[in-house]
């Protein structure tokens, strides 16, 4: 292709991407940069530069460090759980044959049902006069949402909602592995378990990358369920970074909020860097 034609094509591509790029700049990039600026000043009126004072303040506040710790723990538990559990189900679905799509649709239902519709259900199970107490703790009922088990509850709700999506991703990845690989392996005398690790997991790697990305996104979104269930100040073990930021916003502590946001952004950058490292290592192995 001549150089002129190539340049014209690239320019057309640029035009196609322009709305998205422009909107991203206006509504996401510029606000992030502004947020960093806000975290370095003392208040909106005087706008004196105070360096890292806001950061020191938030790290000395118990609320922020609690939220940070909870969020990190939550993500570290949820993401692996949301990879292993759907993978197991996907393996079973794969061997189930005919009704795959039907099951797939049913497992996707929790994702498409809005959170507000099922909040009351979950509350009715875990609250003081709820089903769990009725079945197991008849004499000493406890509001489980206000105990340190609340984290476990949120993880259950999170898995209920998000496992379906990852399940389908894994199912697709599984369907994509050519049968010949397994047959070759058996012919050469490999066992079934080893086949799983050497073939299945290896060829699922690209899918796993996407699953990890989606899981991280969705685990941040779990905030919505926690907020709907327990309000702005939930129990200590489920007080997340988003709660902290929301509350700072409501109490007009914009500086601390921005400092917290920047810390979260760095945290997310770290996660993305790790994910991409995983992706690149995978690519170099091909």
């Amino acid at each position, binding site marked *: 292709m001549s150089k002129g034609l190539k340049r014209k*094509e*690239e320019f057309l591509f640029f035009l*196609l*991407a322009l*709305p*998205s790029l422009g*909107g*991203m700049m*206006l*509504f996401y*990039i510029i*606000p*992030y940069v*502004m*947020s960093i600026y806000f975290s370095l000043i003392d208040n909106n009126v005087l706008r004196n530069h105070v360096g890292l004072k806001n950061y020191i303040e938030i790290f000395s506040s118990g609320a922020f460090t609690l939220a940070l710790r909870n969020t990190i723990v939550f993500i570290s538990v949820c993401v692996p759980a949301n990879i292993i559990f759907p993978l197991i*189900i996907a393996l*079973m679905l794969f*061997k*189930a044959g005919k009704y795959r799509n039907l*099951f797939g*649709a*049913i497992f*996707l*239902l*929790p994702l*498409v*049902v*809005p*959170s*507000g*519709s*099922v909040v*009351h*259900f*979950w509350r*009715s199970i875990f*609250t*003081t*006069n709820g089903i769990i107490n009725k079945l197991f703790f*008849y004499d000493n*009922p406890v509001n489980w949402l206000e105990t340190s088990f609340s984290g476990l509850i949120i993880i259950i709700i999170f898995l209920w909602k998000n496992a379906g999506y990852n399940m389908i991703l894994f199912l*697709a*990845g599984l*369907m994509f592995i050519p049968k010949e690989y397994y047959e070759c392996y058996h012919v050469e005398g490999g066992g079934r378990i080893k086949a799983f690790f050497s073939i299945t997991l290896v060829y699922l790697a*690209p899918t796993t990358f*996407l699953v990890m990305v989606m899981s991280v*996104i969705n685990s*941040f979104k779990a905030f*919505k369920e926690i907020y709907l269930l327990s309000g702005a100040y939930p129990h200590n073990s489920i007080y997340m*970074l988003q709660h902290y*930021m*929301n509350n700072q*916003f409501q109490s007009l502590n*914009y500086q601390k*909020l921005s400092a917290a*946001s920047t810390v*979260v952004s760095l945290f997310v*950058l770290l*996660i*993305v860097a790790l994910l991409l490292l995983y992706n690149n290592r995978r690519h170099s192995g091909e």
Partner: protein
Amino acid sequence: MGRYITKTIHYIFLIVLALAFSFPILVAVSNSFMSAFEITNRYTGYVTPANVFNANNNIHFVEMSLIPNFVTLKQYFKLFFGSPLFLGLFWNSVKIALPVVAGQMLISAPAAYAFAFSRFRYKEFIFFIYIVVMLMPLQVSLVPNYIMADTLNIDESYLAIILPGMFNPFGVFLLRQYLNGLPVEYIEAAKADGAGFIRIIISVIMPLLKSAVAALVILTFVEYWNVVDQAVIFIKDSTKEPLSVYLSRLSQENMDLIFAASCFYMLPTLLVFLFGQENMIEGIQLSGIK
């Protein structure tokens, strides 16, 4: 024989799991046909004359059931005729969700195509930024978004929610991953046949994108039908709030229409899902291949 047993066990497990997954929804649907009286007596912690036979000494446990004692449409009547507010709120939710979905389709699809096929040097770097933005929880940019909305004079309107929603990088991400997985031969063949730039887009890319777009539409619609955080911050007038916020505030005392409200609220997302479901599953699958 052993294979058959394994398969049966798999099926049983899957069926049990499917029931567990759909149980909360089944409860919401079946309970929406109970009368307010029955709901209150089933779910309240207080011992009332109606539920005293199922109560412990001083506390009454929830009697959840999939079968109402009396099937009635009273909840729905109350929903539609007793609170005119409800339909207005429903329409508010529509006013937020539909523009975002439409905008996402129009904005993300061309951008995804550009990201997939352009050979611009810094393309991967820009896409990396898209991924970073996608992972950020939205509270990160609360203050600047609020200030931005104020500057653009849209802070009390739905635009403050709709505009960032339309430009959310998730759409570009999903569609681009999908396009990456498509065989290049389709486009090569079209080019060999002499198709121009626009021709390729219309005849080759758009039909192939159908499943991914279906997945994007469903996911985006559900997300913005469900919007709570942004709505709470940007919309102060309670007659303009979307249904999601209203439902989140329905407390224990208002149990008389909570299930019917939840079911009706669920309905659009279920319809959109049923409509695009096969396409969506295919779209999700193919976007995961590469």
